[in-house]
């Protein structure tokens, strides 16, 4: 296989991940957001599997399998059920308008590229573009968390941020499997903890809008 094609496919998949992150910013329904998140994880799986094939590193296939099973299937299904049980509004309330969010998102992608291309001039082109895309996905995940009021969509932002981390980890050669598995499981545990918290927030405040927490912080608990 030619070198150019290897690079092109890696570029396509990693660029696709950034694109799906932008799509997540654009969504205004919770279920649609979850479906896009599942797509995000699926693209990540493909990207990781391609890296495993390119680097001839069988342990990366395990990472890909973890991403596929947990992030593309288990977590979206669990979140779907959670939304149904919480019985919350399915529309996402954003802090600022979608247009402004998209502009900020684009500038974050630009920022990630400027930073990553400056600091890695000697690295292998494949690793360079992977790191630049991973940083963009990470920053976009943070942006989703910041611009959404609903706690469920904040979880989705957190998970997509973690997808960016996995992309960065697989782009760099020689990441041990133990580290990846522990990252994957810590995220899963974080997800469970956040899930429990969600139900507690809902029980106490009758909403999963995190503004309620801000109001609460002003007063002392009795």
């Amino acid at each position, binding site marked *: 296989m030619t070198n*150019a*094609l290897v*690079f*092109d*496919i890696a*570029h*396509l998949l990693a*660029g*696709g991940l*950034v*694109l799906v992150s*932008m799509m997540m910013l*654009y969504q205004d329904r919770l279920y649609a957001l979850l479906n896009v998140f599942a797509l995000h994880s699926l693209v990540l799986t493909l990207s990781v599997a391609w890296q495993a094939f390119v680097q001839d590193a069988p342990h990366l296939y395990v990472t890909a399998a973890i991403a596929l099973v947990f992030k593309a299937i288990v977590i979206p299904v669990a979140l779907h059920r959670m939304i149904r049980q919480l019985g919350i509004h399915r529309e996402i309330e954003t802090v600022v308008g*979608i*247009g402004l969010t*998209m*502009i900020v*998102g*684009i500038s974050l*992608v*630009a920022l990630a*590229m400027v930073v990553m*291309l400056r600091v890695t001039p000697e690295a292998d*082109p494949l690793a*360079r*573009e992977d790191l*630049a*895309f991973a940083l963009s996905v990470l920053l976009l995940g943070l942006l989703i968390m910041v611009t959404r009021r609903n706690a469920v969509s904040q979880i989705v932002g957190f998970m997509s941020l973690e997808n960016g981390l996995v992309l960065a980890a697989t782009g760099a050669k020689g990441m041990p499997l133990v580290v990846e598995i522990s990252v994957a499981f810590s995220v899963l545990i974080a997800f469970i903890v956040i899930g429990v918290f969600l139900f507690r927030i809902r029980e106490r405040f009758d909403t999963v809008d995190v503004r309620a927490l801000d109001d609460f912080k002003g007063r002392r608990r009795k």
Partner: protein
Amino acid sequence: MVLISALLVQAVQMVAVVLLAPLLTGLTRKVKARLLRRQGPSVFQPYRDILRLLRKDVVLAENASWLFRVAPYLIFAMTWVSAALVPTFATGLMFSWSADLIAIIALLGSARFFLALAGMDVGTSFGGIGSSREVMIATLAEPAMLLIIFTLALVAGSTQLSTIAAFMTSPQVGLRVSLGIALIALTMVAIAENARIPVDNPATHLELTMVHEAMVLEYSGRHLAMIELAASLKLLLYISLIACMFVPWKLATPGAGPDAYLTGMFAYIVKLAVGAAFLALFETQTAKMRVFRVPEFLGAALMLGLLATLLLFVSRSL
């Protein structure tokens, strides 16, 4: 000899776009009707409509200025010239070396400017609403279109359509995510520019939603025929643009034999038919959006164009 053949190809191109444009509109309507399980009018109905309109008298408002009478011909001429610049079945057209992709956008922009002026000329409220909406859509669609052109120009190293088409058929292109994004963004812009669902409904005269139809409400007779033909030409132009940049297969190159031109023509008609079928399929699948959602739709196209340009900087040039 080369000059004569180039002239001939250009002449065939100019005639072909005008002749095929109503057929494309008719085919889209027919496919759409069949998808909705209706019989639908014949695919040749737009030709009959235009001929009928050409024979009818023009009814002019008393306060219509000269602009109102001139605008349809201007709009038709500008759209026709820009459609003649897009390589449809052969590259290396006579005119295409004098104007590139940016010139095509400028021509379409001026055609839209005159249409908006004509909409406001008589002073009815519908025309005004239509013009203001059209200009709102244009202010968002044109930057998106220009960003898509920048992406393509950065990839192909030229804004010349023949060069872009030649580059796209060469193995240098490879798989580029930017091109995929540009294709999606260009499709979104094309839908908005041609006043199709979900931005505008070409088949309705409901005053709350119409954009393009509101502007041309005062036109009748041969003026209306010109405007309808220009609208069909614009649809053909955008489908040809997408076909020439993203599926430039079987385009005849200058100096090729007559059979190459015939294959090119046949391939072009197939591409148009596929484009019409996809458009009809898409239109039956989506609902029209509120006018105030349109900026979001086009804003997404703009952002996609920007993203496509950005992603180019981390592509193979590293």
